[in-house]
């Protein structure tokens, strides 16, 4: 039995059981889709791991795809492009929205960044089973009274059947998460403002629990290659190429999770998600951010949605009552200091990841290894299929921001 992500909520036994059923359902859906993923080096039951050790599996939160497809500058542009950018590229299990406010001169400026690593499936489970709790929670997280309309698109979701609540909440707040059990009428991106203008939890379909389980499960085998008649661990290229998912090798999350699991399995260890399963903010280099030459006040770095250190949420920047704005803060990269104009600069300094437990190693037999003969040749990330989509998105961005199309770049 897994507790609530981050130990953030006290759900009671019934709701907690439903959350665990959802975890099991996601796992079964993955296996039904591909039985070959099953691995004796993976357990969904963390209790089965005796005297576990923890594994460092984490990565930076900024999107990799637009960077390897085009450039870092484009990654920043697209990421900071409001809800469109969020649902287009923020797929490293770290999403954000920038809250804006008018300054004294009437100019709309970024006030703070809301960053979340909370799983969509958790919120959908709550919203399906308990609307009152969901509304109270959303209001507490966002800091204002969130209406039923903002959550379900109806005046009283308690009058809806559970399945209708699931559909309504997914439509307005969570998006479809590419969940095949939802009707096709549920859109990919949520239609409401509460998880687009704001960041309540992750809603990009690739940031789902299913993908998280998949990628750890995918890696949790002793993949091997033979070099000079010696068996050694297979490379990232071999593993991802073997299954025709080379494009995933270029992202931050997938290779970190898969290769972390593979390294453990190659040592004869069983891998499990530690309790509580979830995605967490592991570190934030807040010292790189300064305001007028001083450290950013503690009150502007607000971790939440979890018990320390299991944070799933970070609000970074001044409160509404403060005179300052987000772009009064500068981030120091190398010798330069740059105003913080969006969330990309923040999540590029955040590491996220799940909690992973490892068993003690056992000796592997020949039959345990998955011997690969696929090529180790470098995967050309910039030629990945996903880049076509990124290039299209960039074209849309440029049409909306005609002055931002980059020209030749020279010395700064």
């Amino acid at each position, binding site marked *: 039995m897994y507790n609530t992500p981050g130990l953030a909520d006290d759900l009671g036994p019934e709701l907690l059981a439903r959350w665990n059923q959802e975890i099991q359902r996601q796992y079964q859906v993955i296996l039904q889709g591909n039985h070959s993923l099953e691995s004796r080096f993976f357990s969904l039951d963390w209790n089965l791991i005796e005297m576990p050790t923890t594994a460092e599996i984490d990565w930076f939160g900024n999107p990799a795809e637009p960077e*390897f497809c085009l*450039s870092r500058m484009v990654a920043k542009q697209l990421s900071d492009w409001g809800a469109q950018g969020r649902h287009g590229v923020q797929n490293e299990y770290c999403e954000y929205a920038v809250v804006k406010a008018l300054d004294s001169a009437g100019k709309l400026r970024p006030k703070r960044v809301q960053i979340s690593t909370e799983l969509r499936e958790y919120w959908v489970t709550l919203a399906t089973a308990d609307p009152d709790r969901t509304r109270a929670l959303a209001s507490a997280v966002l800091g204002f009274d969130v209406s039923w309309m903002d959550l379900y698109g109806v005046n009283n979701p308690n009058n809806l059947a559970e399945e209708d609540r699931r559909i309504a909440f997914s439509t307005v707040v969570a998006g479809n998460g590419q969940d095949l059990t939802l009707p096709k009428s549920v859109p990919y991106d949520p239609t409401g403002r509460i998880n687009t203008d704001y960041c309540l939890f992750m809603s990009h379909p690739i940031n789902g629990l299913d993908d998280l389980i998949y990628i750890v499960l995918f890696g949790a085998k002793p993949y091997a290659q033979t070099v000079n008649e010696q068996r050694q661990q297979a490379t990232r290229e071999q593993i991802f190429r073997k299954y025709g998912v080379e494009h995933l090798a270029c992202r931050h999350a997938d290779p970190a999770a898969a290769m972390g699991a593979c390294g453990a399995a190659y040592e004869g260890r069983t891998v499990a998600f530690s309790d509580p399963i979830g995605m967490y903010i592991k570190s934030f280099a807040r010292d790189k951010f300064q305001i007028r030459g001083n450290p950013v006040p503690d009150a502007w770095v607000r971790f939440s949605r979890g018990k320390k250190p299991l944070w799933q949420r970070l609000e970074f920047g001044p409160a509404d009552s403060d005179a300052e704005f987000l772009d009064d803060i500068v981030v120091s990269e*190398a010798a330069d200091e740059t105003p913080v104009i969006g969330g990309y600069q923040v999540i590029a300094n955040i590491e996220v990841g799940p909690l992973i437990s490892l068993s003690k190693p056992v000796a592997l037999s020949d039959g345990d290894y998955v011997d690969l003969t696929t090529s180790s040749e470098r995967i050309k990330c910039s030629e990945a299929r996903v880049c076509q989509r990124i290039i299209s998105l960039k074209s849309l961005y440029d049409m909306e921001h005609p002055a931002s199309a980059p020209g030749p770049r020279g010395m700064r």
Partner: protein
Amino acid sequence: MPLQEGIYYQSGARPGTAFAVVFLRADPTADSATVGRSLERLWGVYQGLKRGVSRDLPNHLFPSGDLTVLLGFGIKAFGIAGAKRSVPPEALANYGLFRSPLASGGGPLLIGSGLNYADDVKANPATEEIVVQFIANTQLAVRRAVVETWKCLSDSGENPPVLSVSTYFSGFQRDDGRSWIDFHDGVSNLKSSERYAVIGIKPTGDPSTSWTEDGSYMTYVRIHVDLPLWRKLAPDVQSIAVGRSKLTGCPLAGVDSNGSPLSIAGCPSAPSGEIGQDDGFRETPRNPDPTIATSHVQRVNRHRGAVEDPNSLRVFRQGFEFLEPWDRSPGFRAGLNFVGFQDTPERLFQVLTQPGWLGKTNFGGAEQTLPLLKVLAAGIYFVPPDGEHTHFPGQDIFV
């Protein structure tokens, strides 16, 4: 794979024992074509030195010491009038410079880093347009190369000289696999099979940077190690700070109930053994206890993902010790020439500033802010591939 020589990434390749870097300053009025011609002349001199030939001793060969020469170009090189290439936007434009020291000396190398300049460093000498790295089997060979550099530049008759030597640093490799703090060093560097994947610049979707592919970025940091301060720490505290046993080099996995360091089981395999003989124990454990997780070796390698992914934050390091006279006690400065090669300098910058890595940490261990290391010079240089040049690597930047 057309990396320049002087990056010892291939299986069995080991650098020579002697090292020098020379920093060349370009006259601000010189244009790129003029600088290119100077570099071409210099490159010719270096090719002669590699064959045991110098301009002042025609037909009198000397031992070359198996000299290797590597050229690198800093962000300022791309600002020379008429430069044919723009500064590589992602890596060098964003990560091409460390912070400058304070005018009064000292100051942080990077905001968020625990490394500071030494208090007598008021200017960073490693920010010139060009760096040349020499590695050879003898100290004479690398020092001769420095002097021959000066000869070539001063013999040009240019007034002012197009290029001039602003400073040089030298170093040496130890044959005991240890560093000045007496611990084993450089023993868990990248496997040879992994090195190129970390070092070589990879293709991106930005065609304007394709000319940098298969080159690399060189990081140079000259670090003074405060040995008097280090020696005040008890040996067990030193071990926990490093993450290895002092005598055997065995990686630590934890501490016992008394706080004493515990090596990984089975290491060393012989009673008098050391890692080096016991290659199976060179690598640090993936899952140490929380105390050891704060050690230096764990902070610089958190065993994350595939090394070719910049997210792994691995860099390929070639280190050379130094010892130089100093007018303060104890009369000398001992330290390390840190030379790293990677596909983007961002890897190193993240290591130096991210919490859990070396962020806000000077070296490692419980005493995170103990100022053991002090920076004397630090620079970032683009190292062009040794590809299709006809005159010198990187000529397409200038002509």
